[in-house]
């Protein structure tokens, strides 16, 4: 069970923000091409940062809390997913604010 800990944190983020799409109808997942195009440069830049930090041992991950999938650069699978999930939650939040307060766009 503990091997799913990090994955569970990420899943909780997606579950917690899902009502923004399903109830508030922010239309972020509906614009999935725009979302994927947004995530692409973000993933490239921040995975590079992460791999660099891992190589310098700035931070380390406890394997007891990870599923045992390590990507090139000794990057845990969860870290790649982190850079997909967290930016998606950020976009959902931003669009939720705009949905309720369109006048705050500028």
């Amino acid at each position: 069970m503990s091997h799913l800990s990090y994955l569970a944190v990420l899943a909780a983020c997606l579950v917690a923000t899902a009502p923004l799409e399903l109830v508030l109808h922010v239309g972020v997942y509906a614009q999935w091409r725009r979302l994927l195009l947004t995530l692409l440069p973000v993933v490239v830049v921040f995975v590079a940062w992460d791999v660099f930090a891992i190589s310098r041992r700035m931070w380390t991950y406890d394997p007891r809390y990870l599923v045992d999938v390590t990507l090139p650069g000794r990057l845990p699978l969860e870290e790649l997913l982190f850079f997909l999930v967290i930016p998606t939650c950020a976009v959902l939040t931003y669009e939720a604010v705009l949905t309720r307060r369109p006048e705050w766009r500028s």
Partner: protein
Amino acid sequence: MSYTLLAVLGAAAAVLVDLVVLRTRLLTTRAFWVAYAIIVFFQLVTNGVLTGIPIVRYDPDAIIGWHLVFAPVEDLLFGFALVMITLSTWVKLGGRETRRAAR
């Protein structure tokens, strides 16, 4: 290079992306700051879990040593850079046409 320096440079680069590179100027909008305030609260919760268990450990020599809900303060700058670059890119790729077409 320490995580401290890298985090400061990352946050500064993110500001440049918003104001100069993509010219989305989200930093001047209320929507960005309100969204960021919400995101930071949840970052402290989730990052608190990750660093409190701890699933992630930091080299004491790579950070300045100030912590907030278990996490090094550098994570706030890292998170800001991540959110800033994400939202700037999202807005740059958007526009009202895209929004209407998707609905």
